[in-house]
C-alpha cells in the first residue's frame, strides 16, 4: 500500500515529459521557508538538477475523536500532538519556472495522544462548569516521512516561491498526514551547476 502511494507520488508523466525540454540547466539552490495548513512546518532544502535533500520540522495537533470534549474547539486536555524531525532525499522536476518534487527518508517523531477519560471536577452553581481530565499516551518512534510538493515560479527579485506540500509520516505509533501551503525563500541565490 505504502509502496503504491509512493510511486503514485512520483511525478506525473506529463511533467516528466516537459522536463526533458525545460531542464537545459536547472539551477542549484538552497531554499528554506515555512508551511502552514493542518500542521505547521519549517523546512530547508538543497535543490540540484536531479536530486534534492530536504530537512523539515513539523508539528501537528488535533483533538481526540471519541471523548466528551471532542471537536475542533474541544478542551485542550484532549489535544493530541506530534512533532516530527525528518531528513528526506528526492527528485525535483522543473516545469517552466515552477517545480515539482517527491522525496522520502527517515524521521523521528515525538507525540502525545489523548487517552482514556479519568475524572471531572465541577464548580458549584446553577450552571456547573465541568472540566474533564484524561490520561495521555506519550511516545517516541522512528518512521518514514514522505513528501510531494509543488512550488510556483520565483516571485519578485528575491525569487520567493509559494507552493503546496503533501506530507506524511508512517510510523508504528501514529501515521500523520498534512497538506500545507508553503513559502520558500533563497531562490534568488540559485546558480547553474558547475560543469565537471
Amino acid at each position, binding site marked *: 500500500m505504502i509502496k503504491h502511494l509512493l510511486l503514485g507520488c*512520483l511525478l506525473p508523466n506529463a511533467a516528466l515529459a516537459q522536463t526533458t525540454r525545460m531542464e537545459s540547466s536547472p539551477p542549484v539552490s538552497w531554499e528554506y521557508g515555512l508551511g502552514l495548513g493542518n500542521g505547521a512546518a519549517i523546512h530547508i532544502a538543497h535543490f540540484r538538477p*536531479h536530486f534534492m535533500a530536504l530537512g523539515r520540522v513539523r508539528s501537528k495537533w488535533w483533538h481526540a475523536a471519541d471523548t466528551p470534549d471532542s471537536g475542533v474547539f474541544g478542551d485542550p486536555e484532549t489535544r493530541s500532538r506530534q512533532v516530527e524531525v525528518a531528513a528526506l532525499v528526492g527528485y525535483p522536476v522543473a516545469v517552466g519556472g515552477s517545480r515539482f518534487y517527491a522525496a522520502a527518508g527517515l524521521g523521528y517523531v515525538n507525540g*502525545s495522544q489523548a487517552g482514556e*477519560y479519568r475524572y471531572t471536577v465541577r464548580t*458549584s452553581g446553577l450552571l456547573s462548569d465541568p472540566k474533564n481530565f484524561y490520561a495521555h499516551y506519550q511516545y517516541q*518512534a*522512528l518512521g*518514514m516521512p514522505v513528501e510531494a510538493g509543488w512550488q510556483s515560479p520565483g516571485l519578485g527579485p528575491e525569487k520567493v516561491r509559494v507552493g503546496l506540500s503533501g506530507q506524511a509520516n508512517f510510523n*508504528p*505509533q501514529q501515521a500523520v498526514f498534512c497538506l500545507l501551503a508553503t513559502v520558500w525563500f533563497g531562490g534568488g541565490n540559485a546558480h547553474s551547476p558547475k560543469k565537471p
Partner: protein
Amino acid sequence: MTKASRFLCALAVALLALGGFSGCTLTTTTVEPALPQGRVNDSNTVAYLFNGQAVVAHNYSDLSTLLLNPILSQFGGGGAPVQAALRPDGTLVLGCVDAQNIVRPGYVQHGLAWQIAAFRGAATYQPLPAGTAFQTQTRDAADETWRRGPVQPLAAQAPAEVVVTEWNAATRQLRGTFRLQFAAVGSTPAAEVREGRFDLVLAP
C-alpha cells in the same frame, strides 16, 4: 538511458526499499492526569490512584443536584458524593464516590469507604477491616444502567494505613493521606489504592 532516468530508477528502488521499513517504537509512556491539590471547589475532596489510574471525588451543587437530592434522599439515595463524620465513639468514617464524573456507556464509578477507630487527631491509623471496602460500577452500554461489581474487602496482611496529617477541632478541618489494598473477589481483580489524599470538613 539518460542520467535522469537512471536516477529516477535508483530513487524508485530506494523508495521501495524504504517502503519495507515500517519504523520502530523507541519509547511509550502513559501519563496520568495530576491529582488535584487540596480542596476542589472548596468542598470535601478525596483523590487517589486506583491501580495506577487517577480517581477524584468531590462535592458540588448545581441545579440538578439541588432538585434531585431531596427527592432521592426520600428513597435512601442522593446525598453528597463525599461524606465523612466523627462518631461519638471516636470512629472516623469516610465514604466517597466520584459521582461528579461524566456518565457514559462503559464509564466506571469508584466507591471507597474506610473507617478508623479511636480517633486522636494527627497520627497514623490502621483502617478497620469491617468498615473498609471498595466497589466499582460500570455504566452498561445496552440499557444504560449501572452494573455493580462485588464489594471488595481489605486484603489480608497487605499494607494499609490512614495518616491524618492535620486536624483542627475548632473548624473540624481534616487532612491526610492513605494507601489501601483490596482483595480480588471472583473475576474482579485485586485493587491497589495509593497516593490517596483527603481534605475534608467534618459535619458537626
